[in-house]
């Protein structure tokens, strides 16, 4: 029982990080109907931005909370710039061509970032500095919760809350929802769709950057291809929760995270990568719109 609870806690920590990455997928898919494969590598760049800024700020020597927040902000800014650049250079010229072309381009950008990352950062794994000293804040009857796990959960919940408020309470958020509902009609209503798409990329990538730093905190080994599988699983989480749906991405991320940690704990660590896809196939066969998504009927 204790072990189960402990696994659940670890799973929720991972899940909240998946959820943060999933939000970027869900938002971009919402407005562009594009699986932005490069998103997982933006998350990798986020982790590295955190790594370099932490060293630059000299945080590795004396950890403190305000500096840790600063590192996270820097990494979010770097990532949102990167996201906007990718969108402008690679996806914007393809706005009118088929979705498949855009998908292949996204894969190309992803390869570019991975290989460029190996060139710039070096292919060997790096150790993310301890921004905040890890402590056990709860240790009773065999269940251990560290402050880092709690930080990951709280930070992702906070960011998600802010995003939800932004999308549902501001004019820009309303425009975003309009674009994702119908991009042509939205532009007829005077919404600058290009601007909205850019903002979507900026926000989504910033969240990936935050996820990168949070992963660095909990799992300090970072390397240029670290984004590959978490990225795919985050996309699975987005589909699971219902693509284009913010609470859905959160829910999907948590389910994937918990399922994965449970698989490692009770089955075999080698099945870790299969479980997310197994869940995905099951959900798509029985409820293709995702848990919280609305199913649409096709009109002829």
């Amino acid at each position, binding site marked *: 029982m204790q072990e189960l609870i402990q696994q659940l806690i670890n799973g929720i920590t991972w899940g909240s990080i998946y959820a943060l990455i999933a939000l970027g997928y869900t938002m971009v*898919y919402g407005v562009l*109907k594009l*699986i932005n494969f490069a998103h997982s590598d933006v998350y990798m760049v986020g982790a590295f931005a955190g790594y370099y800024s932490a060293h630059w700020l000299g945080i590795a020597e004396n950890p403190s909370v305000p500096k840790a927040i600063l590192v996270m902000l820097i990494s979010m800014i770097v990532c949102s710039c990167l996201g906007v650049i990718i969108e402008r250079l*690679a996806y914007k*010229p*393809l706005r009118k*061509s*088929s*979705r*498949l*072309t855009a*998908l*292949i*381009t996204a*894969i*190309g*950008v992803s*390869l*570019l970032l991975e*290989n*460029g990352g*190996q*060139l710039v950062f070096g292919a060997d794994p790096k150790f993310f500095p301890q921004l905040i000293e890890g402590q056990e804040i709860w240790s009773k009857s065999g269940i251990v919760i560290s402050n880092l796990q709690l930080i990951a959960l709280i930070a992702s919940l906070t960011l998600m809350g802010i995003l939800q408020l932004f999308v549902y309470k501001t004019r820009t958020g309303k425009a975003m929802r309009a674009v994702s509902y119908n991009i042509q009609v939205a532009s007829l209503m005077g919404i600058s769709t290009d601007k909205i798409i850019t903002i979507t990329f900026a926000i989504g990538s910033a969240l990936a950057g935050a996820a990168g730093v949070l992963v660095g905190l909990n799992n300090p080994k970072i390397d240029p291809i670290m984004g590959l599988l978490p990225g*795919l699983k985050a*996309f*699975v989480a987005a*589909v699971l929760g219902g693509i284009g749906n913010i609470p859905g991405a959160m829910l999907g991320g948590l389910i994937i995270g918990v399922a994965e940690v449970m698989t490692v704990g009770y089955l*075999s660590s*080698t*099945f870790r*990568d*299969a479980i*997310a*896809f*197994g869940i*995905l*196939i099951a959900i*798509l*066969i029985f409820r*293709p719109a995702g848990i919280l998504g609305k199913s649409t009927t*096709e009109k*002829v």
Partner: protein
Amino acid sequence: MNQLKKILLIILFLGLFLVLDLLISPRMNPYYLQILIYCGINIILAVSLNLINGFTGQFSIGHAGFMAIGGYTSAAFTFYLGPKILETLFLPLWFSKPLVFVAGLLLGGTLAAFAGLLVGIPSLRLRGDYLAIVTLGFGEIIRVFILNIDAIGGARGFSDVPKYTSLFWVLGFTVLTIVVVRNLVYSTHGRAFLSVREDEVAAEAMGINTTWYKVTAFVIGAFFAGIAGGLLGHYLQYLHTNSFTFIKSFEVVMMVVLGGMGSITGSILAAVILTLLPEVLRPVKDYRMVFYSILLVILMITRPQGIFGVREFNWDWLKKIFSRKKAQAEGA
């Protein structure tokens, strides 16, 4: 008469491949030979995926999974059962070895085709990106399961696979794949595949069994992917699940899209280009994959329909030029 001509043509080609194999293989630089064999395997993969993605309009990125099934099955067959069969069959080795090899390949292809059937079934409900991600998931699940089977190497990889693949087999199966896919696409059934791609609802209204065609495309595509996996395994004499990740599937999808969805010649050309490109870029070392990915992005932006689009390469344009010149000469 026509039938006889076809058979003669097949024999002629087989003879040509055999001569090529016997003459070229021993003298050729092994590095170039390897690239040539990779080209052939990639052509099989790209053309078979084109049937699913290009002609039938389903979007699969799980080709590496089928390839893995075919590769591991055929390797297990020739490794475990092969020696026993060779012992019991009282046939000369030069005859019985290829027999075992082809049997292994066909078995691998069949199992891959069965997996294609399993993947094809969800394709009945899912479209576009969702189908893409499900096929990707299937591919990864297959890979993880193989990783957990100890008899075929598991995480260590499957080594000591007998070396049966030669240029002859690769050329033979490449041509076979191209001929089968081409003849299928240009038959009555081929029109049905195209109609599913163009408009599924309309196709169904015209009385086409879209379900059947979608699943068939998956089964045939997977079969040839399995063959390609078998060829690769018996060439390298070693199989590891790391060669069958979704990155491999992406590579094949890139070939199909780059060549043009629904163009067989396009797939062939793109498979050759994308096999050669990383090798050509070898002198720039670390920048190799960076150039590769940049080139890919630029190509997609500048020519999104692929090199050939839906057209096929033919010599008509040459004829046109000649006939124009003739006309001009006559006019003058």
